Each structure stands twice: as structure tokens, then as C-alpha cells.
């Protein structure tokens, strides 16, 4: 055998990423504790007018955005600064292997987070349909692909300190104004049409359509697919191993 297959390289890298993510206490807080606490707060208090059916998809969206984008971008930015990624650039691990490895590890962690939120939701009388869950899974996988690829674009291009600022800033902006917490259906028409084209809005609307209305979120899926393709292409093109 002259070299290890791509499937084995990606698996090895995904296992490595998962190991490091699980070991990181802050990561676990962001991935599991905050989303569950957020849902409990929405479920047990009257702070929100949202029903639990609306609250769960929103918390799913926040969880995906936090884990697949903000947390991943910051982590990768600092890996790059340390020179670890530069060294990996000399190994058989290709840029695409790295993207897929991170996508799988972060996807699995996000899935665990979503399961934790879903279990919490069922205690609060959340009862989704099986078809709605299947549709939400498609939206979730596409969303994770979008956020992972764009996290790598930012982490692989900017300095670690800039990545920290950009990833946190975008998280807040997208969460509040990007159609996640405030649905685009509650925005003025013109603004809503523009925000609908953002991946954050497509993700949140897609999850709501799937889980609340049990309908196929065609537009959201198309928007997410386009962002995912551009993100993967960009990550492959601009990602730099060097600090």
C-alpha cells in the first residue's frame, strides 16, 4: 500500500477532532449546557411568547451556529496560529480531508447537542412528527456543512485574534438580525427577502418549517446548498496552513 485512503485519513482526523473537542470544558458548556439551559428557560418561564414548538427549532439553530461556526472557527484559528496546521500541511492530510474531518467531528458533536435539546424538549411537551424530524435532519446536515466550511474560510485566512472577533461578532449579528431569534416572518418585507438569503435565516426557517409546519423547506434547502458549495470551494481555495 503506497498511501492511506482518503476515507481512512478523514476518519482518523474526525476521531482526533472529536477527542479534542470532548476534552475541552468550554466546548462542552457551549455545546450542551447553554442550549439545554436556554430551552429550559424558554420552557419554564413566561419570558418568551414562543410556544415550545417554536422554541426548539430556534435553540437547534443557535446550537448549530455556535458549535459548527463560532466554536470551530476560533479553535481552528488558534490551531493555525500554533503551527499545528502548518505541520499537517506536510502530511498526507489534504485540505479537503481536513474540511471533511472537521465536518464529521463537529457534526457528531452538534448532533449530540441536538439530541440533548430534543430530550429536554420532550420533557416540556414537545412532540415532533417523524417526517418533520427527517426533514429537519436534512436541513441540519446542510446547515452544519455551511457553517463548518465558512468557519474554515475565516479561520484559514485571518489571524487568530481577528478570527476570534469575526466569529463572535457574526454569531451575535446572525443570531439576532440573521433570522434566528427574530424570524424573518416578523421583519419588514424588503428586509425579510434579503435576510432570507442568509444561511442563518435559511437554517432557522428550514428547521421551523420542518418541525412546526411539517412542510418541505425547499427554498431554505436551495439557499443552504448554494452557501455550502461556495463555502467548500472557498475553504479549499483560501485556507492557509501557515500561521
Amino acid at each position: 500500500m503506497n498511501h492511506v485512503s482518503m476515507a481512512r485519513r478523514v476518519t482518523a482526523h474526525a476521531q482526533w477532532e472529536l477527542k479534542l473537542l470532548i476534552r475541552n470544558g468550554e466546548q462542552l458548556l457551549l455545546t450542551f449546557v447553554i442550549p439545554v439551559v436556554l430551552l429550559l428557560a424558554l420552557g419554564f418561564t413566561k419570558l418568551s411568547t414562543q410556544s415550545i414548538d417554536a422554541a426548539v427549532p430556534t435553540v437547534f439553530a443557535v446550537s448549530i451556529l455556535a458549535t459548527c461556526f463560532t466554536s470551530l472557527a476560533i479553535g481552528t484559528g488558534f490551531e493555525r496560529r500554533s503551527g499545528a496546521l502548518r505541520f499537517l500541511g506536510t502530511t498526507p492530510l489534504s485540505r479537503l480531508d481536513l474540511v471533511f474531518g472537521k465536518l464529521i467531528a463537529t457534526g457528531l458533536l452538534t448532533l449530540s447537542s441536538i439530541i440533548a435539546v430534543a430530550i429536554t424538549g420532550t420533557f416540556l411537551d414537545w412532540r415532533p412528527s417523524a417526517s418533520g424530524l427527517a426533514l429537519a435532519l436534512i436541513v441540519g446536515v446542510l446547515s452544519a456543512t455551511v457553517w463548518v466550511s465558512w468557519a474554515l474560510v475565516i479561520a484559514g485566512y485571518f489571524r487568530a485574534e481577528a478570527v476570534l472577533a469575526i466569529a463572535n461578532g457574526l454569531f451575535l449579528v446572525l443570531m439576532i438580525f440573521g433570522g434566528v431569534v427574530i424570524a424573518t416572518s416578523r421583519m419588514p418585507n424588503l428586509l425579510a427577502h434579503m435576510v432570507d438569503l442568509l444561511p442563518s435565516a435559511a437554517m432557522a426557517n428550514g428547521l421551523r418549517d420542518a418541525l412546526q409546519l411539517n412542510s418541505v423547506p425547499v427554498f431554505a434547502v436551495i439557499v443552504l446548498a448554494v452557501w455550502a458549495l461556495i463555502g467548500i470551494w472557498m475553504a479549499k481555495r483560501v485556507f492557509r496552513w501557515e500561521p
Partner: protein
Amino acid sequence: MGSHALAYAQTVAAVEIRDLVVRYGSLTAVDGLSFEAPAGCITALLGPNGAGKSSTIEVACGLRPATSGQVRLLGRDPQDPVVRAQLGVMLQTGGLFPTARPLEWLTYLAKLYPNPADPADLLDAVGIDPGLRTQTRRLSGGEQQRVKLAAALLPQPQILFLDEPTAGLDALARRNLLDLLRKQRDLGKAIVLTTHVLPDVEDLADSIWVMSDGRIIMQGTLAELTGSSQAISFTGPMHLAIAGLMQALPEGYVASETQPGKYVVTGNPTPQVMATIASWCAQHGVMVSELGVGSRTLEQLLIETSKEGNR
């Protein structure tokens, strides 16, 4: 070096670089460089800071694209997965995962290669306890170097690129590392070494390539580079007014202070020149010792070439 010199003549180049140009915007870091490193030899790539050594190595390792020119490793493109599986690299900066422990870092890397060495055995060989639970960021500089060397040797590669491998090592660890590299050479590996520690080069290198301003300006064995011309050297007080001595010497002679209080005059060492030096020192009340003729050291050679390059 005997058997290695023979091997050097007989083996094919594992690393072949032809007319390499690397530009960063308007800055040309590597300017039409051609270089080769055969299997079974340690090849040193030397030169002052900014000569283009790191850019050359980065292109050869596949970390950076060439602006133009050709790089072939084992006869293939450096990005070829088969080649990358046969490449061991020790970078000057980077090479460790800060929050990982040495064994788990190497165990992960081993999964990327088709025929890796045993990570625990390798750590043991470089003097790191495989059971060490300290994160690599908390290791001493010397320990980090040793883990980086283990990572470079892990693929059991055909080609090893080593950038400043002995930096930060104590005397014993340095000697062990040099022994390890000799063993790798004897196993038929092509080793490309860049370093500023010239005694390492004198100890190890079968072939030396000297770079300046992005080009190769000299190439040969240590004996070829340093033995072909003689130099006069002497010891005296530090920081003598060398410019005055240069004026006293015939045209074509170059005087330099290679280390504080150590002086070298290059050019044909005639009795007249020896007398001129002694006379100039006497006129200036300078007490000299160890005035004599000998082969140039590698350090003297590099200082001269960098001075000539700056003129």
C-alpha cells in the same frame, strides 16, 4: 564519509528542484534555484537569513506553491499522496499540537501513513517517556524538538526535511540526534538539513549547498568548499580597525573578524602578506597570537560569501 561519498556519486536524486522561483508580491525570495539531494546522503542547505532557504523547503514540502520552476520528490509532484506518505518534515516553528500529549499526537499522525513506525518506540528512541501525560505546549524547548523529530521520523520516510533540528537541544540530546540522523542516512534516506549550527553541518553533511539572495552560489562537499583555498588567521583584541589592515594588504585580500577577537585574511597566503599583517599589528600596538595558515572553516566561508553578497 567515504562510503557515503561513493553513494552520493551513484544514487539518483530523491529531491530535484529546477529553476525554482518563489515571489511574494514584488519580493523575489527564490530566484531560479536548482538543487538536488540524493538518497542515502545528508544534504545541507545553508545561507544567511533571508537567503530563501525556508521558502525553498516550504515549496518542496508542498506547503507553498512555486511561482515557476519544477520540484520533483522521488520523481513525482510533491502534492502526490504517494510522495507525501514518504515525506518526514521537522519545521522550525510548528509541528506540535499544543493541547495534545506526545504519544496521542504521534498515534493520530501514524493513522495518516501506510507504514508508520511504532509511536511509543519512536518517543523512547528520542528520549521522551511515551507515558508522559504533559501537553506538548508545557514541554521544554528541547523536549518539543525531540517530539518534533519523532513526528518527522514516524512515516519511516524516504525523504526527511529538517529545519534547525538541533535548536534548543542540550549537548547529549544533540549528539543523540546526530547519531539518529546518521542511522537514517545509512538506511538510504535522503536528508535535507537547513541550520545555522555549522558544527552540525561539518559533522554530518555529505553535500553542502550555499544560498544567497535566492540563488545557489556554491555547492560541494565540506572538503571541496573549505579546502580549495587557504586563509591566514590570527587572534587578537576584539574589534580591531580591520579597514586599516585591509588598506595595508595588497589588493584582492579580504580581512574579517569571524568571532570576537578571531580574524581571518583570505587570499593567497604569501610570506609577504604574513609580514604585512605582523607589521600592521606591531605599528598599532596589537599583540597577536596564533598567527598561521590553514584551511578555511565553513563559518569563515559563509561570512566571506555573505560579505561579498552585501558589497
